């Protein structure tokens, strides 16, 4: 897939908004396009994490498997969402399984190359880190609400 296509898809993601031409080009230079069929795994728990993904089309499930209780689907992510920060944070291992739920088009980024560019250019490194942090924070907020199990009736809430 051409670099032009990578740049076009990247320009459509919220993650790339306001990045500036120089930083945008650096990020695009680390990316390529991949297609995943429904049921295909993008990442497996425990596997070395050397890439991160931006969803261009389709959706994926984040899953945790337990031999006793089976597979729990913890979250789904869709168009524009970023998947994975493990490539940036030691020990660089995926903490969940990531499975495509439908035909899914991804921008995939080489985490090792990206880290190198971020180390060499702190301005670029900060711009990328700030975007990832915003996404991580937003996901943390959502998970805070999710873990409250809000839809269970509270004790004594109604007669």
């Amino acid at each position, binding site marked *: 897939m051409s670099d032009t296509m990578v740049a076009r898809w990247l320009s459509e993601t919220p993650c790339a908004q306001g990045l500036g031409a120089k930083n945008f080009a650096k990020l695009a230079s680390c990316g390529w396009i991949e297609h995943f069929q429904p049921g295909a795994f993008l990442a497996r728990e425990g596997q070395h994490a050397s890439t991160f993904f931006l969803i261009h089309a389709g*959706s994926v*499930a984040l*899953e945790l498997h337990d031999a006793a209780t*089976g*597979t*729990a*689907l*913890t*979250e*789904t992510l*869709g168009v524009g969402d970023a998947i994975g920060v493990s490539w940036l944070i030691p020990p660089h291992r995926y903490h969940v399984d990531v499975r495509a*739920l439908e035909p899914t088009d991804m921008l995939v980024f080489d985490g090792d190359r990206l880290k190198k560019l971020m180390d060499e250019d702190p301005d670029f490194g900060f711009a990328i880190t700030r975007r990832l942090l915003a996404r991580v924070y937003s996901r943390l*907020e*959502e998970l805070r*609400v*999710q873990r*409250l*199990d*809000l*839809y*269970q*009736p509270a004790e*004594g*809430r*109604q*007669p």
Partner: protein
Amino acid sequence: MTPVRTEPWVPETVAIKRIARESADTTTLVLDTSARPGGFAFKPGQFNMLYAFGIGEVPISISGDPAETGELVHTIRVVGKVTEALTGLTPGSTLGLRGPFGTHWPLEKARDRDVLIVAGGLGLVPLRPAIYEILKNRSAYRRVNIMYGARTPHDILFANEISEWRGRLDVSLRVTVDSAGPDWFGHVGVVTTLVKLARFDPETAVAMVCGPEIMMRFAVRELETQGLADERIYLSTERNLQCGVGLCGHCQHGNVFVCKDGPVFRYDRLAPFFSKREV
């Protein structure tokens, strides 16, 4: 059925026409109001006080179609003795009814605008009459987004209707659950994550939100992030409703009575008290 009473304190007796089990703990009662002169008229978002004879009275949102005045629909989750008694009734048995009470969803204000309906859990119940009205007068509204969050796929209310609404080409309906197994192919995550997927004009759209208070707080935050002004966000709250007419004070929420001034409020009116733990 007894004649219509004008005193808001005195319940009238109504018979149960039929019953539907919605989920393990939630039941819909269809009450026969056909003998009532003019049937039972209400506006979407209003509630009734239902009385299980000899046990107690509870406020329950109306979940049926406002156009069907010959029957009155209530969807009830079992959370205590009264709701347990009400959902244990059988067709033909009777209960006490007072109402309708309270304010309604701003369907007139939403005309010619994009509409966002955000429901969490049982919060879909008071919104369902609004959805009926909107879909019945679909051309009066612009883009219609319905977002619904449930605990698990098994807790999704009105599943058949949701499928039907989702099949319409003039409605965007998204459902999410908080947790699911691998056999679920839908969205997993809190309902607020659906807001950013909706297409609407933040300058004019009207949002109607109902669910647990924390969910509504997060939904409001997300709607604000997307550019919606507080005066176009409407919430339905529930607070210890007892008399239904603003006299007893049990439902007082700052300087408002939820039963009389609500349960549907414009968010900017509720905002000063909404996240205060003392209120």
